C-alpha cells in the first residue's frame, strides 16, 4: 500500500479506505436528519430550549437540596445523588460515548449569560449583544486552563461527592463564573475554555458515535453570507465560535443546534458514525495538540487516584482525600498532581521514545509521535471511566429511589419509595462488567493505535515497528486497570 504525505513531517493519511476493527468503513455515516421529523425537531427554536428549561428547573432543585443538606451524609441527598451518581453515569455510559457533547446542548450553566448577551431567551434578535463581548486571549484558546481547573476540582472530590454544601458551593460557583465570564467575553467562551466538565467531554467526544457536520462542501462554498457563523433571524451565529461549514471533529462543538436553524439550505447533518472517527483527524484547522494529550493523561491519572481513594479498601487514602489532617490532604494534592501531570505523561513519553527508536524513522519529530499516540488513550480512558462508573451506579443506584421521593429530606414520600432500603444491584457482576468494559475499549485503542501509527510513520515498516511499544503500554495500562478493578487485594498495614 502506498502512502501520501504532502507536507513533509505532517501525518500521512493512507489512500486505502480504513475500517474500524477491519469491519466498518470509517467514512460511513447514517444521517438522522434525513428524517423530516428529526430535522424539524432540530430546526425548532424549542430544541434544545425545552431540555434546557427542564434541566435548569432540576438544577434549582439540586442547588436547594444541596444547600438544605448542608453537611449531612450525601447518599441521602438529592443534589449529590443526582449530580455525582445519575448525571455522571449517564454522561459516561451514554451521553459522551454515543452522543458526543449532547450534555452541553442541555447544560444549564450558560443559560443566564446567554440570556444576558442575547437580551432574550427564546427568539432571535439582530441587535448588538450586551456585555463587553471581548475575544478570548489567543494563547488561552486550548484545553490547558480546563485541564488545570478540572484537576483542581478533583482535589476536593472527597468533599464534593459526599457533602451537599460542598456541591452547592461548586455548582453555584460554576454558574456564577459562567455568568461573569459571559459579561466580559463573547458567546460561550466559558464553555469553550474554562468549564471543568467541558474538557473531558470534548476529548472523549472524539470517540463518540455521533457528530454534527455540514453535508455538501459546494453549498457551503457558494453560500457567501455564512449565516451559520454570523447568525440570522432564525438563529444565533455559532455560540461556540466555530465555523460549522468547516469543522472536522467534535472536540469544541457544543451541539447547540443553532447551525441547523441558521443554514438556509438545510446543509447541516446530525450523523451516526463508527466509534472514534475523530481520533484520526489532524488538520491545520483542528490539529492534534499537547493540551488534548495532557487531558487524556490527566483523565487516566484521576481514574487511578479515584479508584484508590473511593473504590479501594485503603483507609489511609480515604483519610487523605477527605482531609482528616491538613498534611495528609496536602500530600494527596501533591501526589495526585505529580501523578496526573508528570508521572503518566513521562511513562507514556518513554514508550513513545522507544517507538521512534524501534521504528527506525529518524525524520519524524518525537513531539509528533508523542502527541499522535496520546490519542490512543482516548478509547482506553473512556473504558476506564465506564468501568469506574459501574462501580458507582450498581452499589449506589438504589439511593436514587429514596431521594426522588423525598428530595429535600422533609419527610415527603412523593413516589412511595422514600423508605426503599439500600439495595446493591447486580454487584455480583461488577468485576465482569468492568473487565468487559476494559477489554472492549482496549480493542478500540489498539485498533486506532495501528491506524495512528500509519499516519505518524509514513513508511509502513516503520509504522509496524513503531506501534509495538505503544501496543505494550496500552496492554500494560489495561492490565493495571484490570488488576485494580478485579485483582488487587493489598492489605493495609
Amino acid at each position: 500500500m502506498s502512502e501520501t504525505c504532502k507536507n513533509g513531517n505532517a501525518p500521512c493519511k493512507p489512500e486505502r479506505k480504513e475500517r474500524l476493527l477491519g469491519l466498518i468503513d470509517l467514512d460511513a455515516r447514517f444521517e438522522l436528519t434525513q428524517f423530516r421529523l428529526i430535522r424539524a425537531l432540530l430546526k425548532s427554536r424549542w430544541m434544545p430550549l425545552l431540555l434546557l428549561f427542564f434541566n435548569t428547573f432540576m438544577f434549582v432543585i439540586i442547588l436547594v437540596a444541596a444547600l438544605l443538606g448542608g453537611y449531612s451524609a450525601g447518599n441521602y441527598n438529592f443534589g449529590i445523588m443526582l449530580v455525582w451518581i445519575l448525571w455522571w453515569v449517564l454522561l459516561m455510559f451514554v451521553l459522551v460515548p454515543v452522543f458526543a457533547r449532547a450534555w452541553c446542548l442541555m447544560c444549564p450553566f450558560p443559560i443566564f449569560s446567554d440570556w444576558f448577551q442575547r437580551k432574550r431567551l427564546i427568539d432571535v434578535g439582530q441587535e448588538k449583544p450586551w456585555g463587553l463581548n471581548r475575544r478570548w486571549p489567543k494563547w488561552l484558546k486550548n484545553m490547558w486552563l480546563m485541564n488545570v481547573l478540572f484537576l483542581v476540582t478533583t482535589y476536593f472530590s472527597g468533599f464534593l461527592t459526599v457533602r451537599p454544601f460542598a456541591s452547592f458551593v461548586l455548582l453555584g460557583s460554576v454558574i456564577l463564573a459562567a455568568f461573569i465570564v459571559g459579561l466580559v467575553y463573547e458567546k460561550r467562551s466559558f464553555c469553550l475554555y474554562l468549564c471543568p466538565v467541558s474538557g473531558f467531554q470534548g476529548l472523549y467526544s472524539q470517540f463518540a458515535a455521533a457528530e454534527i457536520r455540514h453535508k455538501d462542501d459546494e453549498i457551503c462554498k457558494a453560500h457567501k453570507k455564512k449565516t451559520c457563523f454570523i447568525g440570522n433571524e432564525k438563529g444565533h451565529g455559532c455560540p461556540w465560535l466555530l465555523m460549522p461549514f468547516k469543522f472536522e471533529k467534535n472536540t469544541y462543538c457544543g451541539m447547540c443546534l443553532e447551525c441547523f436553524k441558521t443554514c438556509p439550505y438545510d446543509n447541516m447533518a446530525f450523523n451516526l458514525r463508527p466509534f472514534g472517527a475523530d481520533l484520526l483527524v489532524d488538520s491545520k484547522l483542528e490539529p492534534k495538540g499537547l493540551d488534548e494529550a495532557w487531558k487524556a493523561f490527566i483523565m487516566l491519572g484521576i481514574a487511578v487516584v479515584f479508584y484508590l481513594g473511593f473504590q479501594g479498601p485503603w483507609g489511609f487514602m480515604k483519610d487523605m482525600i477527605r482531609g482528616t489532617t491538613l498534611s495528609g490532604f496536602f500530600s494527596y494534592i501533591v501526589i495526585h498532581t505529580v501523578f496526573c501531570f508528570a508521572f503518566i505523561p513521562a511513562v507514556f513519553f518513554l514508550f513513545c521514545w522507544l517507538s521512534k527508536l524501534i521504528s527506525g524513522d529518524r525524520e519524524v519529530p518525537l513531539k509528533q509521535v508523542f502527541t499522535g499516540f496520546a490519542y490512543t488513550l482516548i478509547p482506553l480512558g473512556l473504558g476506564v471511566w465506564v468501568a469506574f462508573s459501574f462501580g458507582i451506579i450498581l452499589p449506589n443506584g438504589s439511593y436514587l429511589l429514596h431521594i426522588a421521593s423525598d428530595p429535600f429530606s422533609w419527610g415527603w414520600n412523593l413516589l412511595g419509595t422514600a423508605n426503599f432500603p439500600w439495595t446493591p444491584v447486580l454487584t455480583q457482576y461488577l468485576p465482569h462488567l468492568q473487565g468487559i468494559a476494559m477489554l472492549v475499549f482496549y480493542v478500540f485503542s489498539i485498533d486506532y493505535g495501528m491506524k495512528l501509527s500509519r499516519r505518524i510513520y509514513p513508511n509502513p515498516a516503520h509504522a509496524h515497528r513503531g506501534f509495538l511499544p505503544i501496543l505494550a503500554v496500552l496492554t500494560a495500562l489495561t492490565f493495571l486497570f484490570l488488576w485494580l478493578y478485579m485483582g488487587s487485594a493489598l492489605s493495609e498495614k
Partner: protein
Amino acid sequence: MKRSFFCGLFAATVLCAAQAAPAPGEEHFFEIRAKKFEYAPNVIRVNRGDHVRIRLLSQDVTHGMYIDGYGLNVTAYPGEDGSLAFTADRTGRFIFRCSVTCGEFHPYMIGHLKVEPNTPFIFYVAILLAAGAGTLGIVALRSRRETANE
C-alpha cells in the same frame, strides 16, 4: 515462533487458573473491626471451598458489611457484634461494603474478600494477552506481506 510463544503463554495462564484450586474445607475465622470509614483488616484472603466465619465489631457507630457476589449482609452495633458464616464457593475478588449509613464517607467504606484462585481476573488477563498477541500477529503478518510486496 512468536505465535507459538503467545499461544503457550495463553494456555499456561488458563491452565494455572484451572489447576490452582486448593483442597477445600479449611476453617477461617476473621475478626473485622469497623470504624469510620474503614475495615481492619481491610483485605481477607481464603481459598475456594474454605469455611469462613466473620465477627464484625463496631468501634464507633453502627456499621454493616455486605459482601458482593455472596449477597450476605451483617450489622454491628456499638457493643453488639455481628457474625457471619459462609462457604467460599465462588472465586474472585469481592468487595465488601458498609450497608448502614455511618457518615459522609459511608459509600466509600470498602474492603476486599479474595477467594483464590481469582479465576475471573485470570480469565480477563488471558483475553487481554490473547488480544495483544493477536494484534502482534497481525502486525507481523502485514509487515511480512508488505516486505514481500516491496
